[in-house]
């Protein structure tokens, strides 16, 4: 009886996850190991050529470099801006903190395409920034602010910033105030207390925020396309192009290179930050 | 005792969790209409035993019987029992009346009959006025009564209680102990409860089983367990005890002569000549006589006043001793020489002690 009931609970979600999450991804990997084909989805022979082509081509390597560069800048900016904001949020009294968090969560609920469109309206040739600068007389001709990599960085960073703030703010708010008090009792001033106590103890929040922003940056196709245009393509754009050209093995290989990149960077971040050593209370 | 008289029976029941044996080959019979307590320190297996009766745990070996029926394969919701949990487990989203009615509802009782049974049960626990309140609005003691009402209203074959009075303060606990006992006797329900408090077990129960490390050390009526503990553990767990070691030097029928530092004692014992035994004597049975009298010589080391009694800590040739004296009569001081004596029936030979 007990096992029958347990099966009723587990089977549906497990089936959904295995059939429509695990299976397709494994299938995609399988396809990435095949030759391309003109008539079918993919050819018959097994090969590693799809990966070799991408990793040996300077064009693709350049795209990967640009992707990593964009990710690095976005992470750095969202940390630099996000941490102080998270600190501010964490210091608020509980009721106000919830309202502030709600104000941060709300933009995340708006579709990325709408938020990217907002940046287009801001930075476009007839956008708010250009018309504003023109009417004040600073410029004569509109600036080309869109369709380049800095536009992608700016737009994507502000879209993902709330994730960073919320992760760190939750970690900071959960910190026992007494750790800081203990440090001060031992003679550490506000700066030293922050550097040696608060910052290290907030590492789990920093880690989860960083990982989330990283993963979302790598797959933010719509934002990258709208703000970057045809000349600022990143790795994810290549995947889309491959699919629309029906080059399935090629697109599949690109997808798994992206995944490998994500995993490698995740491992790197976890190794650098080592959030595990902070978990658990020091009682 | 046959099944018709035992409401609950456990036969050779064993239960392990991983490598830890919680209940080891336990045999238990609980007569109908009695309050039976499972007593022991943390980790002794008493709660696991209770949960095996309930069906929340399945035994690895052995069988569980309720009213003669083998219920081992039957899940808890089809067994004829109810339970009062340590945390009371009142349903927060239901009112007091709805909580109490829940079991009746599950059994398909009609609404009018339910209402009447519920108000009767609430009257029994003296909570009639609170029927429409919600659990979060009640005090701990009130919640406990609701839990009790909810459990008894369905007239179960056996009522299980898991440390039900643990969360109450001392005065409330003693009050509830008396009320529980009265309630059980009035209704004639078979009750099994788990406690680590030996005083509570002695107060409430008709029979007590002392457990240690998954094994029942001894079962019996409270007085019998207290006066005649079988071994050192039971003697020490049910209250304080004095221990004196000696060797049997002669036998005369069922009586043995034991050579102890206190001199020769005559006791009921089954051990043979030459065997070493340990004797237990309750502190309140250890009399203190003036130095001129006969008895075991001892010296008063410490005196602790305890209200109705005074505890005397003594040193003797047989080891340290403890004596409780009513505060009436002779007054002693630290350092006094006394002679300790006791009635022959007060000394108990303990099992299985090798010294």
């Amino acid at each position, binding site marked *: 009886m007990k096992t029958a009931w347990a099966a009723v609970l587990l089977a549906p979600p497990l089936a959904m996850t295995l059939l429509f999450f695990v299976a397709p991804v494994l299938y995609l990997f399988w396809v990435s190991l095949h030759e391309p084909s003109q008539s079918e989805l993919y050819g018959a022979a097994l090969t590693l050529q799809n990966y070799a082509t991408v990793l040996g081509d300077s064009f693709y390597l350049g795209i990967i470099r640009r992707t990593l560069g964009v990710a690095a800048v976005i992470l750095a900016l969202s940390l630099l801006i996000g941490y102080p904001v998270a600190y501010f949020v964490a210091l608020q009294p509980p009721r106000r903190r919830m309202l502030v968090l709600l104000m941060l969560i709300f933009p995340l609920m708006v579709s990325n395409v709408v938020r990217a469109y907002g940046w287009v309206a801001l930075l476009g040739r007839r956008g708010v920034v250009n018309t504003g600068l023109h009417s004040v007389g600073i410029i004569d001709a509109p600036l080309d602010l869109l369709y380049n990599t800095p536009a992608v960085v700016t737009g994507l960073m502000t879209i993902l910033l709330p994730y960073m703030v919320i992760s760190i703010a939750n970690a900071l708010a959960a910190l026992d105030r007494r750790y800081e008090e203990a440090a001060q009792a031992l003679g550490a001033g506000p700066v030293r207390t922050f550097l040696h106590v608060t910052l290290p103890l907030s590492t789990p929040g920093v880690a989860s925020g960083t990982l989330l922003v990283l993963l979302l940056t790598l797959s933010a196709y719509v934002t990258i396309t709208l703000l970057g245009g045809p000349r600022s393509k990143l790795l994810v754009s290549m*995947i889309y192009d491959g699919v629309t050209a029906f080059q399935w093995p090629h697109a599949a290989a690109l997808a798994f290179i992206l995944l490998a990149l994500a995993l490698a960077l995740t491992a790197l971040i976890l190794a650098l930050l080592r959030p595990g050593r902070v978990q658990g209370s020091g009682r | 005792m046959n099944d018709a008289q035992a409401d609950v029976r456990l036969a050779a029941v064993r239960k392990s969790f991983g490598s830890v044996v919680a209940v080891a080959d336990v045999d238990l019979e609980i007569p109908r209409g009695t309050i039976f307590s499972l007593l022991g320190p943390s980790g002794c297996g008493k709660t696991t035993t209770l949960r095996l009766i309930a069906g929340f745990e399945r035994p690895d070996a052995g069988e569980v019987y309720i009213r003669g029926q083998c219920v081992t394969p039957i899940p808890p919701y089809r067994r004829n029992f109810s339970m009062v949990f340590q945390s009371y487990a009142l349903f927060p989203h239901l009112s007091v009346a709805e909580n109490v009615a829940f079991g009746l509802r599950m059994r398909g009782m009609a609404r009018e009959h339910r209402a009447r049974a519920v108000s009767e049960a609430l009257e029994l626990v003296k909570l009639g006025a609170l029927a429409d309140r919600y659990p979060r609005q009640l005090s701990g003691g009130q919640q406990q009564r609701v839990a009790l009402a909810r459990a008894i209203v369905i007239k179960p074959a056996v009522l299980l209680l898991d440390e039900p009075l643990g969360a109450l303060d001392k005065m409330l606990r003693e009050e509830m102990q008396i009320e529980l006992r009265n309630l059980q006797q009035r209704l004639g329900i078979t009750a099994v409860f788990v406690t680590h408090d030996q005083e509570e077990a002695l107060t409430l129960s008709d029979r007590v089983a002392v457990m240690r490390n998954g094994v029942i050390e001894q079962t019996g009526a409270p007085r019998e367990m207290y006066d005649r503990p079988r071994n050192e553990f039971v003697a020490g767990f049910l209250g304080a005890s004095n221990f004196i070691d000696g060797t049997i030097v002669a036998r005369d029928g069922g009586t043995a002569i034991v050579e102890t530092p206190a001199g020769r004692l005559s006791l009921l014992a089954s051990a043979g000549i030459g065997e070493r035994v340990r004797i237990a004597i309750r502190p309140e049975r250890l009399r203190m006589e003036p130095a001129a009298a006969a008895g075991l010589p001892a010296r008063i080391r410490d005196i602790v006043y305890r209200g109705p009694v005074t505890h005397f800590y003594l040193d003797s040739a047989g080891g340290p001793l403890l004596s409780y004296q009513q505060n009436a009569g002779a007054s002693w001081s630290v350092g006094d020489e006394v002679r300790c004596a006791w009635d022959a029936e007060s000394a108990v030979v303990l099992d299985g002690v090798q010294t």
Partner: protein
Amino acid sequence: MNRALVAGRALRGTATGVAFTLIVAPILIVVVAAFSPNDYFEFPPPSLSARWFVEFFRLENMRSAFALSVELALLAATVSTVLGTLGALFLARRRGTVAVLLQSLFLAPLVFPTIILGVALLLMYKTIGMPVFPGLLLAHCVVGMPYGFRTVLGSAQALDPALEEAGHSLGAGPLRTLLLLTLPLIWPGVLSGWLFAFIVSFGELNTALFLTGPGLTTLPIEIFSYLQFQGSQLVIAAASTLQIALIVILVAAIERVVGIGRIIRTR
């Protein structure tokens, strides 16, 4: 010493001001643009007009994209919440390696790059011949399930484990315990999970990008297509504003029932 505190406070305040401006400004611009009276966007607009909303509902592809998005979100949220709830109830009291693995598996879609999932699903659908709407619905169920799973898991684990046993001891079998005791106590978790799954589906891009087809697009994809091919942009602003408005109404309605604390804490 005091200087450090003042500097810290100034830094935090500035950063917060900058951050909120950058985060909120683009959204505000879009909403304002939706009420522009003219054919082109100018800021600040000379007056307010609802013409672009009228235009939105006049355009058939816009109307059907909106309708599809709502229908899809309703279905996906409901299915994924049911699935997430089942999974959470299964795992609520279970420990051990297998339980941890299952929990990670159920939460994985939250961190897995959904663009890759979109590609993978499209390939699989093409191979087995899956029709468009069911395929899209299943994709959104996968994406939305972790939200219900997470919130219900939190609610279920917060319950006194003795409650279920108390139900059993009174004669309630597993089904009646679930319906009468567990569900009434975890429903705020279920509801906020449903809300998040709805919102995620309604704004979802990465799988819809691949899995929508001619005649069957979601609102965000329709907006994206318009923006890419430089169609009449201000009707896009109206479309976007409608999307935002729906979310505001939904969050406000749920907040009324469940409270802000529930929505925030379970995030």
